[in-house]
Structures are given as structure tokens and as C-alpha cells.
């Protein structure tokens, strides 16, 4: 077991982790933050995307111990005072989700993109989402939802 201190959605945690525990399972199984989900085992699908110090990472590619002294943001940390983040609201009004399983990862990948590039073109949005697979929507409404928030 290794001692790890990390912040998740502004809440500090001190955890004793097995070195092999993936960050995604630390979030899901230890902290009960089940909004982050697992969709594959090859780091291909992006369902488990979270922000690490503001940048998107696939939480299945990171060990929990690697998050030591870092700040993680999950989908549960996106709304403020019960009001959804503008990306979440835009996904809602653009019908950018169907089953919703990839949605947490999509929203966080989009947040990271807009942080880096506040005015992406459609092509830039599409390429930025290459690591996030959605099987329901065909992506068009996701791209539109993100474009509507871009400046």
C-alpha cells in the first residue's frame, strides 16, 4: 500500500492505495464517483476521461498513485451550485447524448479542448475528440454542442 494525497473536485483525500490500482477504479470504487466509467481496456474509448490539473487524461491509463499531489476533476465536479456547466447545458440542448455512457468523458475532453483552444473550427473539434468514442450519436450533435460553447 502506498499513501497518496490528491484533490478530487476540490475535496482533498488521503488514500492508501495498492500500486496497481488504476485511477479510474480509485475514483469509482474508493471514492464512489461513478460518473467516470470504463468502456475499454486499451485506452481507446475515452469514456474514463477526467481532468488532471485541468488537462484531459484517460483515467484508465494512470495509476492512482500517479495522481499523488495532483488535482482531479470528474464529471461530478463540473456543475457549480447545482447549475450545470455550459458544456453540459449545451450537450442537453443539442441532443448530444443518447445512452449517456460516453458523455462524462466527452464533456471533460471538450472542456480541455476549449481551455487550450477557445475557438476551434469544426475540424479541430472533430480531431480533438479522436480519443473519445461515442456509438450512439454519430458525433454531429456533440460537435455542434461544443461549437456552440466555443467563442
Amino acid at each position: 500500500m502506498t499513501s497518496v494525497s490528491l484533490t478530487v473536485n476540490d475535496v482533498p483525500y488521503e488514500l492508501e492505495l495498492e500500486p496497481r490500482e488504476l485511477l479510474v477504479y480509485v475514483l469509482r470504487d474508493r471514492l464512489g464517483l461513478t460518473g467516470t466509467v470504463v468502456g475499454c481496456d486499451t485506452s481507446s474509448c475515452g469514456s474514463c476521461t477526467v481532468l488532471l490539473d485541468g488537462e484531459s487524461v484517460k483515467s484508465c491509463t494512470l495509476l492512482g498513485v500517479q495522481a499523488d499531489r495532483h488535482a482531479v476533476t470528474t464529471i461530478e465536479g463540473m456543475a457549480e451550485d447545482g447549475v450545470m456547466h455550459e458544456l453540459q447545458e449545451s450537450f442537453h440542448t443539442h441532443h448530444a447524448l443518447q445512452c449517456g455512457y460516453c458523455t462524462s468523458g466527452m464533456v471533460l475532453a471538450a472542456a480541455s479542448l476549449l481551455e487550450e483552444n477557445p475557438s476551434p473550427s469544426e475540424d479541430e473539434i472533430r480531431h480533438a475528440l479522436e480519443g473519445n468514442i461515442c456509438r450512439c450519436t454519430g458525433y454531429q450533435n456533440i460537435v455542434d454542442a461544443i461549437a456552440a460553447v466555443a467563442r
Partner: protein
Amino acid sequence: MSASSEVEVGRIVGAPIDRKEDQKLLQGQAQWVDNMHVPGTVYLGIVRSPYAHARIASVNVAPALAHAEVVGAWSGADLEDEWAGSLPCAWLPTEDTNAPTHRPVSVDKARHAGDAVAVVAALTRGAAEDAVELVEVEYDPLPAVVDPEAALADGAPLVHDEFGTNECYTWKLEAGDVEQLFADADVTVTERYRQNRLIPNAIEPRSVFVTPIPAAGEYTMWSTTQVPHIARVTLSGVMGIPESKLRVIAPDVGGGFGSKLNVYAEEALALAIARRLGRPVKWTETRSEGYLTTIHGREQIQEIELAASSDGTITAVRVKLTVPMGAYLQLVSPGIPLLGAWIYGGAYDVKGYSFECVGVFTNTTPTDAYRGAGRPEATYAIERAVDALARKVGKDPVDVRRLNFIREFPNTIASGLTIDSGDYDASLQMALEQSGYESVRQEQAERRAAGDPKRLGIGLATYVEMCGLAPSNVLGAIRYGAGGWDAATIRCLPTGTVQVLTGTSPHGQGHETSWSQIVADRLGYDVDEIEVLHGDTAVVPLGMDTYGSRSLAVGGVALYHAAERIVEKATRIAAHMLEADAGQVEHVRGTFHGPEGSVTLKEIALAAWTAHNLPAGVEPGLEATYVYDPPNFSWPGGAHVAVVEVDTETGEVEIVRYVAVDDVGTVINPTIVDGQVQGGLAQGIAQALYEEAVYDDDGNLLTSNMLTYLVPSAAELPRFELHRTETPSPTNPLGVKGVGETGAIASPAAVMNAVVDALAADGVADIDMPATPERVWRALEEVQS
């Protein structure tokens, strides 16, 4: 616009209302099966065969049992007394269909890579994974057979020794004098196509969680299923658990596309181990494990012939399919190709029709329903063949289609079913206008003349499909094991809200929103005052679940009828309250008007609940159930146009435009309908250009994970241009038709017709799906050398 539809389109029905489902999904509060946990839960790990075909010589679970965190480990033989029946196949198309016993853990042989040979239960997910590695299995490898035609050859390795053959069944449908029509034909077209095997890839992996109450013999199973009701009935038979003691819950389910229209070994295993240990059991597949064990879709060898006159008038269609079932029959494996069996004539008026399908066992993962299930395959074959006919008679493919369209409705087609409505000219016309067909043809010619290495291709698919499964008597006649009805209950609560129970089981389709719109439209409530419950056999005992684009066309119509029953009863109570005759009371969207005054449905619901003063003979409460059995299938149709650019130097195909015109009857929520079409298009385009599950000759799945199987991302897919024509279905009072599969049905044909059209002048007549750069490049090399 909707003469035969009895709803007022535009106010609530027909409005692009934002979905009610979204808030929890967007904030990470969905109830996925894998989220569930209770103290004492054990996790299953499954030992799977690395061989596609091998005799299981011995299984030694002792080393796994020695693991400190392992609570049990079993071979197939150890579990034999758990099973009261085989894992279910609910569709044996002929009396003599070879149907093997299918055990959740195999005892004698492994018949495909990934077949289960042992199971372990451990206190943690990680320990279960470790313990799987500790089980010792000795295999005697056997030769495997992967190709369905090779499997039918003499001397092929037998997947199931007891049958003495790999043939599962042969099913035929013959109508009209096909032989004569072919003999009399001026022109015939003979084509052979391969449908690529696909992996459905619902983005939520499969998961099951069972909590037993041993003393009561009761089990609750949470499962990532599209079919909680069907799972309950069939698993009761597999497990010998009385149906009344098995509750199945499909909580939030992350996509299905047919892959979760099944009853899986792991569901039975979780129940069996929960029964053995008397404690909660959970299993979640890894994606790579799912690639081996969750059903695959498509894969067919299609031989199609058209008989036609010299002007391109098609007189007869003859089809022969060879279809791998895989190693076992899953829930509806044998029936999947038959869902296309009636529509290989497409939207065309043909006289003669001959269809034959041979189902074949192979040492591969079983095939079963994947979005469109039999109809993308049928549409692909007829639409590709019509283009081949157009080239042969020297006509534009548009003209050949127009020459052959069915125009009279209802129309009993050669294969014997009756299409209730459609207007294929209207969809085609709109698709041509929206795509600028003529100007694209012109640009195509200009590019060719200029020797541009980037060829332009235009592909059409003018389709009709049959969905909304289905009249129960028809399903019985084709030996499907269940009915095709669905049920809805409306309960008007005393506090002014409504509870809707639906037998459909959504997993992304937005039923909570669309069903609320239907009820709001009929009963005058706000959409937000209506709660839609689904996917729990204890809450909604009656249902037939969600697949085959049936939910709206069957379950939604049941809801409409339940609303009418509410109005009937409410009218009697209103008359009593208003001191009028029932005949004098008029209902307008939730308000009941009498000669002197009016009363709202909410007031009536309260009166029915207090029951202080009800008319004689009227039961308290305001609740109605309707079970609707559709009198016909649902018949969406439309026209899709794909414009592609094919780089002759690299073989790369780019979709420049994709125009889809679909006719799905009355639209309840256009936003949701567009979303369904977009998702279907993505999967169909993926079949045409990107996806293929590939086995080597030994039965190893080469595309064994998401790194090697290309599920397209936003970067690969184009922007879709969607349009609609609207021919309401006269079959139901809502005028609705199915919509879930249209995109996946029409798009592979449209895209591949475009790819072939781009290269036809170069001499290319066919390219297998997916049309990867390598395949395109090789096809060009072949014709140039």
C-alpha cells in the same frame, strides 16, 4: 399532412422537446450496472479458451481455490446440476433446425476462442482476474473451421459432433414462377457479396449483478440488457427458478444496438453462483473479453440474381445466403438473416421471388442481432445489384429505380407481406434535389475528363425495411418463440401527476421524453408532470422490450390506446361530477366539458382516488392498461445519397456529402428522430468503410480489441444532411413507423454504390466492405494490370 394520423402534430407531438433523461446522464448520476455494490459481493472471473476448437482434457481449479481471496472455483462439469435447460435460442426457423445444447460453461469442448471453461469467484475484481490465471486447463486442440462455405464442405471439422454436419438449417421462400421469369429475361445480373462481420461495440460493456435472498429463493438480477422481460422468462427456464422469484432490472443501459438483445452465459452464471454461495455476485466484461463473447453482427455470403427486361424493368429476384451462426445459437441467431428474407426485392415491384438461407456452425463467436439485423444485408444486396443492372442496361441508376418503384399501397409484395404505405418517388426526388444530383454527375464527368486522380462517385440507396416486430400470429408462423405485442399502463395519480409504465426498455432512445409527449398530447398534462417507468419486471411486469425498431410502433401505440381508455373512464366520472350524460361530455386535451361547466382530468383523478362519490359500478382509481398487438410490420422507407471522393493514388475514400431522406411516418420528437438516424448512419458508414472482425484460419480473432478494430471517431465521420418525407402509417392511430435502424440499413449500400460508381469507368465492379484504402488500391491495381 397526416390524414390517417389521429394526433395533432405540432403542439406536443412533433415538438423538438429537450430530453428528460439528460440531467442525470450529464452529471454523472446514471445508475449503471457496474456501479452497483452491496457488502459481501463476490466478483466472477471467467477462464476462457485460447483455442477456437479444442477438447477440454482436464480442468484443475485447486490452485485458484488456494488464493486467499477466492471463495469458489468451478469447471463446467462442477456446475452441470445448476442448469434446468440450455441457454435459450428463441428462433429455430425449421422443425429440423440443429440446435445444440448451450452451457454457460462448456464441459466437453471449447467451440470458439473465448468459450468459457471455468469460473472463479473472488472478493475483489483484481483477485478474480488473478485467480483466472491460476486455473489449469489442459486442451487437446482440434482443427477449426471459420469460413461458412468451408464449414459445409465434406470433411470439415465438426463444431457439434452430434449433428454430423455443420449445417444448422436451410430455410426457403419461393413465390411466382421464378425459373420462367429468368428464362424469359432479356438481361440478368448475377452478383456475389460478402457482408463483413461486425462487433456492435455498445459503449457500456456488459455487466450483471445478482442479489439473492436464499431463504426465500428469490433473486434480483441487474443486467445491461435491452430485454429484461425476455431475460426473466428464459432465465427462469435455464435456472429452474420460478419466474415469480426472479426480478430482472435493466437500470440505465449504455447502448445496445442488438448486442444486449440477448440472454448471455454470464447472466446464468451469476445467478448460479449466487445460488451456490448465497451471496451477491457481480461480473463485468472487459472490452477485449466482450469482443470474444458478446454477439457479433452481419457476416453473410450473398448470391443475388436479377431477371430484367432490356429497359431495366426487374421481373424476378433470386437470393441465396450462406450465414455463419458461430459456435452456438444465441437468442435469435438463426432468425437474423430471415429478418431480411422478405425484402430482397427492395422498394421494387417484382413478380418472382426466391430466397434460400443456409445457417452454418463455425468456430467463431455467435452472430446475432446488430442494428438492422438482416435488413442492412438485404438492402445492400438489392441496391448494389440494381446499380449493376443500371450499368448493364446503360441507364442512370436513378432511372432504373424509378422504373421499378412500388407505387400502389397497401401493396402485397412478391415475398408475401403487405407494405402499408410509402412514397418512394417523393423521398428520391427530395434526395436528388438536396444532393444536387445533376450537378454532381456533371462534376464527376468533368473530373474524369480532366484525368483528376480523385474520382467522384455518387451512390444511391432507395430502401424499404420491415420493422416494429411484429404481429404475434406472424411471428408464430415463422417459428419465433415470443409474441410481438407490447403493453402500457397509465396511472393518473391524485396529486396531479401521471405514472406511465411501459414494456419497452430504452437504452439511449429517449422513451421517457417521447412517451411523455404522447401522453401529454392526449391527456393534457405537461410533459414534466409525466413519469415514465421501465426496465424492471417488478414495476412493469408486462412487456416485450426494445429491439427491431419496435418501441414506438408497438409500445408507443399501446400507450396511445391506454390513454384512450383513461379518457373513457374519466368521461364517465366527469359526467357524474357534472351531472350530465356521458354522451354530453366532450374531452379536449385533459378538460371534460359538460353542458354546464367543466372538470379537468387532474380533478377527476383526485375524485377517483378519494372515491367518495363515484358513479355506480365504477372502480376507484384512474388507471388503464392496454396490450397492443400490431396488425402489420412497420415499413419505413427513403432515399439516401452518398457522394464520395476516391483517391486513386492512395485508395482513400472520403465522404463529401451524405444526404438522407427518411420516411418514418409521424414524428413524435424530431430531435430524437434525427439523433436515431445520425447514429444509424455512423454505424452503417462504419460497416462500409472501417469495421471488420477478422479471424485467422485457426479461429483466432485478429481484431481482438479496440486498437485493432476501428470504431470510427468524430474525425472519421462526415456531417450528415437529414431530411424527411412523411407518409403516416395507416396501421396505427399515431401514424408512426420505426426509426432506430433506417440509417444503418440504407447507408452501407449508398456508400458502396458511390465507391463503385467512382471507379466504374476504371473497370472496378465490386469492392468488399469495408472499403479500406488497401482494398480500393488493390481493386484498381487488379483492373489496371
